[in-house]
């Protein structure tokens, strides 16, 4: 019995797909590992050096400057009790403000008047040979 599909199949089989170029397989390079290791070592070295430098810079402490004697005295004065100050702030705000101004004058270095910082420094400067 004649089968048209068989005829067609037979006809199609006469055609062959055109040849294709061989599969190009990229072989892993022999020099891959030495290069990778060298790069990794260089990166590790650079990172180590930068960390060390950063630590050294942070370790340098600026020389301590001792405050003048008058300033030291002002700082060491006994301050008011925080509890009393809070109570005063709640009861009389104006008086509290005045007290705080007076206290700040004692504690903070003054730049005006006889006992000013500038005068103290100038006097110390004169004393040093």
């Amino acid at each position, binding site marked *: 019995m004649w089968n*048209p*599909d068989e*005829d*067609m*199949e037979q*006809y*199609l*089989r*006469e*055609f*062959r*797909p*055109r*040849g*294709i*170029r061989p*599969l*190009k*397989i990229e072989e892993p390079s022999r020099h891959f590992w030495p290069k990778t290791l060298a790069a990794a070592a260089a990166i590790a070295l650079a990172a180590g050096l930068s960390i060390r430098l950063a630590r050294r810079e942070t370790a340098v402490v600026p020389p301590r400057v001792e405050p003048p004697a008058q300033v030291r005295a002002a700082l060491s004065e006994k301050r008011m009790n925080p509890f009393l100050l809070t109570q005063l702030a709640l009861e009389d705000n104006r008086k509290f403000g005045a007290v705080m101004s007076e206290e700040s004058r004692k504690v903070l270095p003054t730049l005006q008047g006889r006992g000013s910082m500038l005068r103290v420094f100038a006097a110390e400067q004169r004393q040093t040979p």
Partner: protein
Amino acid sequence: MQNDKLTAAQVKELYEKHGSALAAYACCCGLDFAAAEDAVQQVFLKLLRGGTAVPRLPVAYLYRCVRNASLNLRRSRMHQTDPVEPEKWFARDGGAPEEILALQGALSELPEEQREVVFLRMWSGLTLKEIAEATKMPMNTTGSRYRYALEKLRERLKPKVAR
């Protein structure tokens, strides 16, 4: 249908057996022959790199992969002009070039699913049962697609087949 990873030897064997048919199939997707070779190589190199699980019958899977790669390549080469002279993706002993070009034209005009079945059957050597399994289609659908495709090809190539 279990999925397996192919060894390099298996990939090479598949390439030697089906590479040419896959390239012709990629040409049907609108690529010139050099680009079709690139598309096929892309797919097989990806398989060689490993990590891709393929079905037990990998041929249909390869056709799908090549189709996708071809469409991607075609998209990226949209600006390129078509070759002046039509290329031949098939060869035939003692056949006239017009017959080859006629077949190529007829195959390109087939609907995608019919073309896939024809390629799998004619140039990748799968039985209809294997094609049905590989494409996850019922046997009847696969058979109908194949018959419709042959009918269309016969219509297009009538004078040449009757010769």
